């Protein structure tokens, strides 16, 4: 299996604080991977580096083995096929639910292309299909601001899928969701793996267990342990990091 995302000995510090300190990670195409770690372990900075929001001080970040992600900006990473979901659900509140999906559809992103764009029948069908998938069909004409927290999470996932990404970076998707919604989200992410590569950053151990996948534990900006959830839970260092203080 080919490697989708490859990080090698990445370092990044902020005012002397080493947020990422020798992080190496390889994620295969189609893999579902959970990344866990205590606060300050560098999970968000890792995502920022992958999506071009933050540049690493040293180290390599490669996409599909060929594209150097350290030279790409946020929009560029999105165009390569990296979709990112934030921890706090961020949707475009003043637009309707369907408009949120429509502007996320994979399409020409140039200024004048967008100005003259007209939605095709296929695109309209795709919007409906995605709304069905994230169970927002009934709310399609409502303003996104009126959705519940859980619905916004789902809308954001819909927007992400509309971009037809190869890799989904999902930051704490279960935060603020009901148990039922959490399980449905885990199910959706599992079903996406295979056709997409999915990296989930999460705190909620129940959720990680439901994902049933390889787990990477980050600590102080580097990988502490890797393996199945049972395997890493048995690691004394992991137990110490999580429970020791």
């Amino acid at each position, binding site marked *: 299996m080919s490697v989708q995302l490859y990080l090698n000995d990445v370092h990044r510090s902020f005012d002397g604080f080493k947020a990422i300190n020798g992080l190496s990670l390889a994620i295969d195409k189609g893999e579902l991977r959970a990344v866990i770690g205590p606060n300050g372990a560098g999970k968000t900075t890792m995502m920022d580096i992958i*999506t071009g929001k933050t540049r690493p001080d040293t180290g390599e970040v490669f996409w599909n083995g060929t594209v150097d992600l350290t030279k790409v*900006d*946020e*929009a560029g*990473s*999105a*165009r390569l096929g990296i*979709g*990112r979901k*934030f921890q706090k659900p*961020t*949707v*475009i*509140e*003043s*637009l309707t639910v369907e*408009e949120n999906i*429509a*502007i*996320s559809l994979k399409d020409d*992103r*140039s*200024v004048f292309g*967008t*100005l*003259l*764009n007209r*939605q095709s029948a296929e695109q309209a069908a795709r919007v409906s299909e995605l709304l069905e998938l994230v169970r927002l069909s009934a709310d399609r004409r409502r303003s996104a601001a009126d959705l519940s927290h859980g619905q916004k999470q789902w809308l954001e996932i819909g*927007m992400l899928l509309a*971009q037809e990404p190869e890799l989904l970076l999902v930051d704490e998707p279960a935060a603020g969701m009901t148990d039922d919604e959490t399980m449905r989200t885990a199910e959706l992410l599992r079903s996406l793996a295979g056709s997409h590569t999915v990296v989930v950053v999460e705190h909620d151990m129940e959720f990680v267990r439901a994902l049933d996948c390889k787990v990477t534990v980050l600590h102080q900006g580097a990988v502490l342990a890797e393996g199945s959830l049972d395997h890493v839970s048995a690691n004394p260092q992991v137990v110490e990091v999580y429970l020791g203080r």
Partner: protein
Amino acid sequence: MLRRLIDFRMGIFLAVLFVFVVLVPAGNLAVEGRIVPSYIVALLGKYLCYALLAVALDLCWGFCGILSLGHGAFFALGGYAMGMHLMREIGPRGVYGNPVLPDFMVFLNWQELPWFWLGFDQFWFACLMVLAVPGALAFVFGWFAFRSRVTGVYLSIITQAMTYALMLAFFRNEMGFGGNNGLTDFKDVLGFDLSADSTRAGLFVLSAVALAGGLLLGKWITTSKLGKVLVAVRDAESRTRFIGYRVEGYKLFVFVVSAMMAGVAGALYAPQVGIINPGEFSPANSIEIVIWVALGGRGTLVGAAIGAIIVAAAKTLLTGWLPEAWLYVLGALFIIVTIFLPQGVLGAIEGGMGRARRRTPPKEAEA
């Protein structure tokens, strides 16, 4: 297409505007005894220029969140570009009778026309510059500001600094734009006497056409997919980047279009008030534009135009009665609107209409 551009509020506004376009010049020119005095025609024409300027600011502030506190600069540059043409058209009729040099250059003992005045004897060239100069300034300024991701209050402050710097520059005689007197004593435009009632009526109609054009252009942009992206940039800039849009390009586009629209407003303003001077660059003017838009209703286009006309009319009346009170009234107006009418006058009217409609549900609903 037409239905996309002309919704309910746009339809009403354009209809009222059309009635004024017919009645005001007719009342001034056609009717014996002049029902509409000539100074009113010029005054209303000036309001329409302000309304276009407000629409320009609403396009970039209301829809894309770029709060420019320097939009007066683009307006003034458009006014100067047109003013330079009007100066050249005076020709040998100036006080000093110099066929090429405007009076203030003769007064300063300049021997020849500076290079940047060349070409302004041509009307088409001046019209081009009305768009090109504000557009180019907005492009260069926006290019650096948006690429460096300067946003929010910092962007507002540097736009304010931009207009202030231009004001100081235009006050200097050596700049070649007439120093603190600016450009004035215009005689005619394209051969039409500027003091003639028919010319004034023509300029009034042109201003109304420009306003309608600006509103429709704004509507076309904001109802396109690009318009949705602009709103996305306003609401969640970072999200928009991660969807794959290069936000700086979108901001630059709307900022440049807005600056050009402001330039056109300025170009129509200069011949109607008969003078353009560095005072137009003053930061206070630019802040007033923001008040027009906030008062009328941000992100509504039509509301911005209405806000500009309301405030400008109130200013004319109040500075006549109680000149000292005007600034206090303006400040109070801004505070009242911010606290009680966050959606502006237009939002309040439409909200009221919506409530009234809900209170009396249609018959079918009851059955």
